[in-house]
Each structure stands twice: as structure tokens, then as C-alpha cells.
């Protein structure tokens, strides 16, 4: 992204910009395509990569710990320890190794999302009704069939719940990742912090909130579509 005008165009400021108002809608719309939209897409991309990778790793870890119960305590300890490291400190630790790169950002984001996802997924697997699993065993389903046909399917509400929290959290942390890479809505916010002009800062911040709400809504919807049996409970 070419550095947008942090200080608005002095040549021909609109009335709003000239009066230094808190938020100038005309400036926001004028700069939507060159400033806000690319940042929004980058933000979404960084988030998606982190959540998808975190999801895959967390499902694998949760299934492994579900099968081998003794693994749960150590895996849980490691992931929760990583979760307690503040994002800025983690970036600081990673930069010497992986540089000011997207890789650094994604490593940090995945490590954060994995804790939340792993914890909710493992709980979801453990809360699958014992009757259903026992019936599945008694009917002659293999361990793998029980996992894919019964346990993971019944854990979908937990998977969705974990994804919702992890996605909203990741969208927030991606904003901080602007300290490492010049990408996403955080980058716009970071640059605007040094300027007396607030529209870029407010616009980018609002977009991050909207993105989080939209992602959350999309996951709720996906959850409904994937769990038709849960909708009919009170029917």
C-alpha cells in the first residue's frame, strides 16, 4: 500500500477537513478505494490465515488429546502459557528470528488463537453424550467412524463457539500487528495517531469493529446451518 495522505491534502481541503472536524465523511468516502478498502482486505486476509491455521492445528491437538488423555494437561499448559505473553512482547521476541514479516505476525496470531480453540474444542469433544458414543461402539462403528460421524459432528456447536471468540480476538490483535508489518487497518490507525486529523483513525477503527461483528455474525449463521438438529430442539 502506498502511504496514504496522513495529513490531508492541503492543496484543496474540503470545508469539513479545513475546519478540522472529528470525522469527515467526504474524506472517508474519497479515500475508501485507495486507503480503507485495501487495508480492510489485508486485515481480513491476516485474520483468515491465522484462524484457519489455528483451527486445523487446534482440531488436530484436541483430537489427539481426546484419544490420549494424558497429553491434555501438558498441551493445555503450553498453549495457555503462550496465551499469557502480551502480543507486543511476543512480536518483540519473534522479530529477531523471523523479521518484520507477515510470517512473524501469523506465528503470533496462530499461537494466540490456538489456546482458545484448543480449549473449547477439547471440551466440546469431551461433552459429547456418552450414550451416543457407547451406542456407536456397540453398533460396530470403528474408532475413526465414531470420531468423524459422531464426536466431531456433535462438537460443532463448540467448534463454532471457539471460532467466534478466536476470530474476534484475532481481528483485534491484527490491529496491533501494524507494529511489525505495514498492513491492515492497524497500519492506518498507527499512522493517524501521529496526526491531529482524526478521520483516518476513527474510520479505520470503526471498520475493525464492523469487521469483527460481521465475522461473528457469519459464524453464527454457519453454526445454524451446520446444526439443523439444534434448531428444532424446542419445536
Amino acid at each position, binding site marked *: 500500500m502506498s502511504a496514504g495522505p496522513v495529513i490531508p491534502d492541503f492543496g484543496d481541503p474540503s470545508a469539513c477537513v479545513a475546519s478540522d472536524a472529528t470525522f469527515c465523511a467526504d474524506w472517508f468516502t474519497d479515500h475508501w478505494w485507495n486507503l480503507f478498502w485495501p487495508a480492510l482486505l489485508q486485515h481480513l486476509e491476516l485474520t483468515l490465515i491465522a484462524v484457519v491455521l489455528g483451527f486445523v492445528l487446534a482440531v488436530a491437538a484436541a483430537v489427539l488429546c481426546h484419544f490420549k488423555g494424558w497429553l491434555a494437561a501438558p498441551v493445555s499448559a503450553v498453549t495457555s502459557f503462550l496465551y499469557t505473553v502480551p502480543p507486543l512482547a511476543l512480536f518483540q521476541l519473534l522479530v529477531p528470528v523471523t523479521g518484520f514479516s507477515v510470517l512473524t505476525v501469523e506465528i503470533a496470531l496462530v499461537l494466540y488463537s490456538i489456546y482458545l480453540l484448543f480449549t473449547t474444542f477439547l471440551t466440546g469433544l469431551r461433552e459429547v453424550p456418552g*450414550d451416543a458414543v*457407547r*451406542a456407536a461402539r*456397540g*453398533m*460396530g462403528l470403528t474408532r475413526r467412524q465414531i470420531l468423524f460421524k459422531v464426536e466431531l459432528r456433535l462438537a*460443532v456447536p463448540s467448534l463454532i463457539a471457539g471460532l467466534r471468540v478466536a476470530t474476534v480476538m484475532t481481528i483485534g490483535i491484527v490491529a496491533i500487528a501494524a507494529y511489525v508489518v505495514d498492513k491492515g487497518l492497524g497500519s492506518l490507525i498507527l499512522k493517524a495517531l501521529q496526526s491531529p486529523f482524526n478521520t483516518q483513525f476513527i474510520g479505520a477503527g470503526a471498520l475493525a469493529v464492523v469487521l469483527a461483528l460481521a465475522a461473528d455474525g457469519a459464524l453464527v449463521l454457519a453454526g445454524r446451518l451446520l*446444526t439443523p*438438529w439444534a434448531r428444532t430442539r424446542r419445536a
Partner: protein
Amino acid sequence: MSTEKTPASAQDIVFDHVVKTYPNAASPAVDDLSLTVSAGEICVLLGPSGSGKTTALMMVNRLAEITGGDIRIGGRSITDHDPIELRRSIGYVIQQTGLFPHLTIADNIATVPKVLGWDKRRVKDRVAELLDLVGLPVAEFGRRYPSQLSGGQRQRVGIARALAADPPVMLMDEPFGALDPITRERVQDEFLALHERIRKTVIFVSHDIDEAVKMGDRIAIFREGGKLAQYDTPRTLLKEPADEFVARFVGADRGLKRLTLTRLAELDLTPATSGDAALPAIGADASLRAALSLMVAEGTDAVRVMESGDGGGGGEVGAGGEGGEGPGGAKALGTASLDAVRKAGAA
């Protein structure tokens, strides 16, 4: 696969000095169990909790592995089978049914046929056939989820699912334990009627003596420590309990329980006379116990036995009949006296 279109014939199940000792357990959960369940019979495993009856059941489909002795189904040891293959050839029904909440009724029933690799057409036909068999038309119930059914309906689906691959043997672990008494009675009757038609060999775990007497062709009573206390028909068990434990377990009212085993229709009735009109009426399908109960309730020493309705329900048609009028203008077959009931019960 190997499953034929024709119904699989029932097979006998032989427990041959079976022992189950769980790791780190001081004493065995099942101790030297030997009994034979004849093909097509319902055998109820009855006993207090911790007496090993459920363990005994779970060893048949190798959910618990035997640690001594052998179990043979149709002459073949269960240890000769791969456990997965073995389980797919045995119907399994548990308390609360264990239906999969995320699958429709049709998909629940189709589970085993699908893993057996049946083609779609055959699976669909089988599901419709089974739902019809348990009285839940596929058009109405097939696409519902278990949470949309009543407890009794769920239990019927559980039974249909267990029958899906037409297994010669069914294992039922307190299948009706979670149902309210009225629903349980109805589902029990339905299952008995169903069993008349399908004639599978059934092992049925229960802790309820009344259920055992009603459902079982034979009852195996277990005592603590996984020991078989007695294995007999309900009639013999109630008449001649082997020891103090069995006598206590079947209850002080075992005489009354025996009366439930005989229907009024089986008695030699006294021919009806005009003076009988005042006697309380009861259907011929009712048990001697129901007749006795009616006599006690009405303060009479005989009941008027009416021809039972069109064979559908059976039971105590006279219970609700105020006064002496027979229900629905049914024909009186004769009368049964207190003395006749008592003598028949003692036989």
C-alpha cells in the same frame, strides 16, 4: 455384504464358565457364569446394581472382553470374530436409546446398513420397513430429529435401529429404564408383540422384577459378586426360588406376581348365569392378578369374564366399567371365582 434379504434366523447364545475381572479389581465382576439362551427366546439378566448383569451383556458384543471361559453365538466363539464385525451382527439397544441427536430418525436407523456398504435404494427400503414395523411411518417421522420425539417414540426408534441389519441376536441394556411407567408398559407390550413376529434371541438387562417376569422367557438372577443365583422360567423362579437371596429379590408378593403370568382365558370358567350381572366385568385377556385386584376393590368373590375386544389392546377392560354392564356389549364367557384364581395361581 453377507447380510441376506431373508430374515436372519435366531441363534442360541451360550455362556461357558465366563469370567470377567477388571484390571486392578479385587474380585471378578462376573464369576463363572454358565447359561444357555435358546434361539428366539428373551433372557432377562436381573439383579441389584453391581451384580455384573450389564458386564455380562457387554461381553457378548465385546464391549467388555472376557477374561475367562467363552461365549458362543450359534456355536461360534465370539473371540473368532473381529469385534467390529461381531458388533455389526448384533443389535444393541441402551437406556436413553443412545440415538444420535445430530442425525434424523431415518439416518439413525441407516447407520449400520451404511457402514456395511448397502446401496442407497436398499437402505431406504429397510428404513421404511423398520419404521413401519415399530409404528412410526417414515413419511411422518423419517426426517425428524430425536429431540422432536417423545421418550416412547425414541425407544421404538432405538429398537428399529438395532434391527437395521437384521441381526440374529439383540442385546438390550435397561432399554426402558428411563421411561415413565405408563409409557414403559406400552413399549414393553409393543416389544413383546414385535418379538412374536421377529423371534430374535434377546438378552435383556433389567433391575425390575416386574419387567423381568413380563418380558422374560427365562430370567437369570445375579447376586453381588457377579454370581448367577438362579436361571429359570419366571413361573419356576416365583414358585421355587433357589435360596433366600432370590426369594428376597423377587419379593414377598411373589405369589401375586405369579398371578400375572396367567390370563383369565386360560382358566376353566364357571358358565355364566343370570345372577352374575352384578359381578364386576373384566376382559379375558386380563391377568389373574388383575382379576384378584378387581375382586378386592369391588368386595366380591368372583368376576365376570368378558370376551376381549378385537385383540388389539387386551387388559383390564372391566377396570373402568362402572356397575355390572359389560363394556361395549361384549359377550360374557363365564365367571371366575376367587377360589379358582387362587388354585390356578398356585399351580
